[in-house]
């Protein structure tokens, strides 16, 4: 029993941390720019295709793909910001439509380029590790550590680095920050690109344990939104508890009750939480 409990907890943790990474990208884009990015799922898909393509088409290792995925998706994000999103600031509804359109276009491009069949990203860390209480797949353990490391790095970046402080200044008061000589446009571009990069990285990291196909982003887009809404947009770190509840509890409950019921309960919980605490579940003290 202890064995199954630990396995389930690790499953929940790996799913939740991978979701945190993706949801953090969404939260950065929304928190910093007020843009609701419906192309986030497509960014994740592109990241997964990069990590598939690097070994399959270029013959390089998975790890090269894992590094390239956020860079490539980040660049795509920067271009989209430059040529589309930039003209739509302060037009919330239009950004929703525009990002949805971009999402459809990206997914269709992926289909045109690589077809609609599923792709396999072979697991770079085969085998399992004996943890004493249970034996657990090596790649999932890596995924847990990797996501934690990236999350810590991103939060440290915003807390401590010069550019992170500037970005936060732009969020708190874009006009005042502009008057202080901060380039608002540049900061927005960085935000959109880094949010996209996180989605791409998330897609690449989960690729070996899931199915890579053109529509894989949809589920993650939905779950990321739930995680961000549940955690609240007041603080970036809120995506972590948000994701733990959305992905973690679905995972654990799936073992106990039926999967569909588990998902329904989580969705109902998110709706109730939104009504009771529209500002998010994390305490105000965490907010910026």
């Amino acid at each position, binding site marked *: 029993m202890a064995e199954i409990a630990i396995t389930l907890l690790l499953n929940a943790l790996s*799913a939740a941390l991978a979701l945190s990474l993706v949801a953090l990208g969404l939260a950065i884009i929304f928190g910093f720019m007020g843009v609701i990015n419906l192309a986030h799922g497509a960014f994740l898909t592109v990241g997964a295709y990069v990590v598939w393509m690097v070994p399959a088409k270029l013959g390089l290792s998975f790890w090269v793909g894992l590094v390239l995925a956020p860079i490539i998706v980040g660049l795509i994000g920067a271009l989209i910001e430059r040529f589309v999103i930039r003209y739509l600031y302060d037009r919330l509804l239009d950004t929703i439509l525009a990002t949805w359109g971009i999402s459809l276009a990206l997914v269709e491009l992926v289909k045109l380029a690589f077809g609609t069949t599923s792709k396999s990203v072979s*697991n770079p860390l085969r085998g399992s590790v004996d943890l004493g209480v249970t034996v657990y797949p090596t790649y*999932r353990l890596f995924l847990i550590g990797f996501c934690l490391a990236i999350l810590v790095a991103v939060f440290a970046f915003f807390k401590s680095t010069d550019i992170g402080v500037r970005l936060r200044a732009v969020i708190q008061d874009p006009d005042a920050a502009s008057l202080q000589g901060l380039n608002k446009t540049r900061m927005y571009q960085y935000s959109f690109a880094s949010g996209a990069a996180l989605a791409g990285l998330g897609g690449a990291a989960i690729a070996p344990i899931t*199915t890579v196909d053109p529509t894989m982003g949809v589920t993650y887009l939905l779950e990321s939104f739930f995680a961000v809404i549940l955690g609240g947009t007041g603080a970036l770190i809120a995506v972590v508890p948000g994701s733990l509840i959305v992905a973690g509890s679905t*995972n654990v409950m799936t073992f106990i009750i039926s999967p569909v019921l588990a998902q329904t309960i989580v969705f109902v919980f998110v709706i109730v939480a939104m009504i009771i605490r529209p500002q998010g579940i994390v305490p105000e003290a965490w907010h910026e």
Partner: protein
Amino acid sequence: MADRLVSNEGANVLMGPISSANRVAVSSALERLQVPSLYASQYEGPAADDYCSEWMFQLGDIPSQKIEPFVPWLIEEHGDSFYLLGDDYSWPKQTNEAVKQAVDDGGGEIIGEEYVSLDTTDFSSIIPRIEQEDPDVLFMTITGGGPAAMQSQMQEQGIRDQFAQVGLAHGQGVLQGASPEATEGVYSCHAYLEGIENDSNTEFISKYRDKHGDDALVNYFTGPAYNAIKLLEDAVDRSGGSSPEDIKQGLQGASTNSIMGETIIESDNQMTVGTFLGQVNSDQKYDIVKSFDPVSPTGDCDDI
């Protein structure tokens, strides 16, 4: 959609759709439009609400042609405890009703039945549950990206050798989402598989690959779709016309001996067809293990 194709584009016959949910909707439109459609996909058979539709010609295999011979074979070869895992919509649920009946008739036992929402690709918490129940056969009707993810995750958790795996929607094309080791040995049963050995199929595959390239996908949808066109050809020949009514009259009784072997539309507007049991090899293609004889539909639909 059906309305547009018929009213605006002037179609005399439609091909499609694919999913059961769509078919039920299209069937009702066909009654109104008085135009036949050829539905060439495996589906739940007489359990479907639109089974006796006058205009929807069902040219895919049904449970009595596939599940009823296949399940006893599984019990014989692999054991009598079954765990059913499907997507949460009509086709998996109604197919599983047929599986449950067949397992029951064969003296087997259903020890688990589970549905996941469509597009689920994280099975990591369902797998320990299946492992705990320890079935002899895991019978899957998950679709889309599910099969590849499920196979990868079972491989990752090292439990693939504990029970036989059956995937009715584990088609060529979706298997490629998992590594060959994760899919080898999976069973499926269909009216058409690429590996069927007859002259028409060998010729068809070679022409198809010449035209569309060596890696063009051939799966369990390919055969019925091609066969449907052959049946349509016979229908037009038989009735001597191509109006919707002519096609409908011609289809009733149409037959062809093509890539799936002998097929005929005898009764219920449902094709009589045999099925093939396949097992995934190390190239992620199905090898034919066994073939089952054609089974006629029930003939329960009067007046069509």
